[in-house]
């Protein structure tokens, strides 16, 4: 029999996490599916469980002039419904799953689970967000795009809990987000694309591009973006992004479809807007 822990404070949770090899359970909307088992029976967890959904320390959204801080257990619908958050952040969350799922699924869960289809990762990569990881020994930060290593793989240590995501504020003036699935709503993505632009007097001064679901983790490359800012050469940008693609055919879509379509979407948007 596995043990379940439901601490009341983050401090307590970190102590448990330090002592016991356990699976951290936030919203559970991915975990419950992966550990599915006969109806009416327990899920087939092989580790002890540490529930963190109830921790008030992890449920806050803070917005300041410098940054946005999202608690790990903030639900997707809380982001969707928070009028203080920018639309380019809210939209990807709003298009995930369905209303009931978004009431349960969390910001942190979607990151640590690190599914290839995780729709929050492209926007969090594009925004240069950082994850905050805490253990009883202290706190460390790292860029989300480095934290996520690959499909279902992250750099989390066995004694750590992802507690927050920090998003630095920048002066994005335009954005484009498109998610493609095999039906219009309530579907896992075949691919998603986010482009953020900063323009001053019609001059493009900054941009960020991220592509989800094509590779095991979203594509984001600062060098390619910098090159484009200097050259303005769209075709070169597209070619360079294409070189980063290393996906596979799977049951949801084909490698060719994902690559061709995501690049066409970016190209089409930039041609019209940069």
């Amino acid at each position, binding site marked *: 029999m*596995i043990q*379940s822990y*439901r601490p009341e404070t983050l401090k307590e949770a970190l102590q448990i996490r330090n002592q016991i090899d356990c699976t951290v*359970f936030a*919203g*559970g*909307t991915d975990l*419950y*599916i992966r550990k*599915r088992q006969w*109806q*009416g*029976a*327990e*899920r087939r*967890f092989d580790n002890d*469980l540490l*529930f963190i*959904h*109830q921790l008030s320390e992890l449920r806050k959204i803070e917005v300041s002039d410098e940054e946005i801080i999202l608690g790990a257990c903030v639900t997707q*619908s809380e982001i969707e419904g928070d009028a203080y958050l920018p639309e380019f952040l809210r939209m990807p969350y709003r298009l995930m*799953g*369905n*209303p*009931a*799922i978004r*009431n*349960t699924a969390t910001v942190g869960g979607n990151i640590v689970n690190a599914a290839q289809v995780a729709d929050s990762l492209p926007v969090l990569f594009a925004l240069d967000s950082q994850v905050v990881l805490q253990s009883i020994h202290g706190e460390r930060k790292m860029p989300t795009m480095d934290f996520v290593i690959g499909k279902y793989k992250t750099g989390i240590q066995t004694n750590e809990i992802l507690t927050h995501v920090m998003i630095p504020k920048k002066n994005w003036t335009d954005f484009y987000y498109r998610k493609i699935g095999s039906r219009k*709503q*309530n579907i896992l993505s075949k691919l998603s694309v986010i482009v953020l632009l900063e323009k001053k007097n019609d001059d493009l001064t900054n941009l960020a591009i991220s592509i989800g679901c094509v590779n095991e983790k979203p594509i984001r490359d600062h060098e390619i973006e910098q090159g484009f800012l200097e050259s303005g050469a769209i075709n070169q940008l597209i070619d360079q992004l294409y070189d980063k693609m290393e996906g596979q055919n799977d049951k949801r879509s084909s490698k060719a479809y994902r690559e061709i379509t995501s690049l066409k979407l970016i190209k089409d948007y930039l041609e019209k807007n940069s």
Partner: protein
Amino acid sequence: MKIPFQLNGEPVVAETTYSMRLLDVVRNEFGLTGTKEGCSEGECGACLVFLDNKLVNSCMVPMSHVVGKKVETIEGFAKSERYQVIEQAFQNHGAVQCGFCIPGMIMAVENLLRTQTVFTEEIIKESMSGNICRCTGYQLIYDAIKTVIQEVVE
């Protein structure tokens, strides 16, 4: 272990575990079988209930999330006046066929009424996007929802 919560307005205690699904508990411990298991992965909406007034898929909610909270199932909601309006609209429009998805649909309609103030076609459809029906092609359900909105809101 014992997990206390409120079920359809009554304080109850479930003899279960933190990792058990709310769906299994309302169905098996409390015999409330109006909440159905369709897909068991949060896609179909047959298992929708309100948890502290938020619509959730009870197949994806562990009992740990339920401790001390209010759970409302179709059996509880069916006692309300607004339920009567929804029931009548679904009946009049012929929105029901096999019926397996319908209690969940009803909960989603109530959630739409509770959470939205404007009821465009887009908002209605997005609100109902987590409810799959394999029989009706949705049109008569949509028509029933429009009638409900007219009666309740306008």
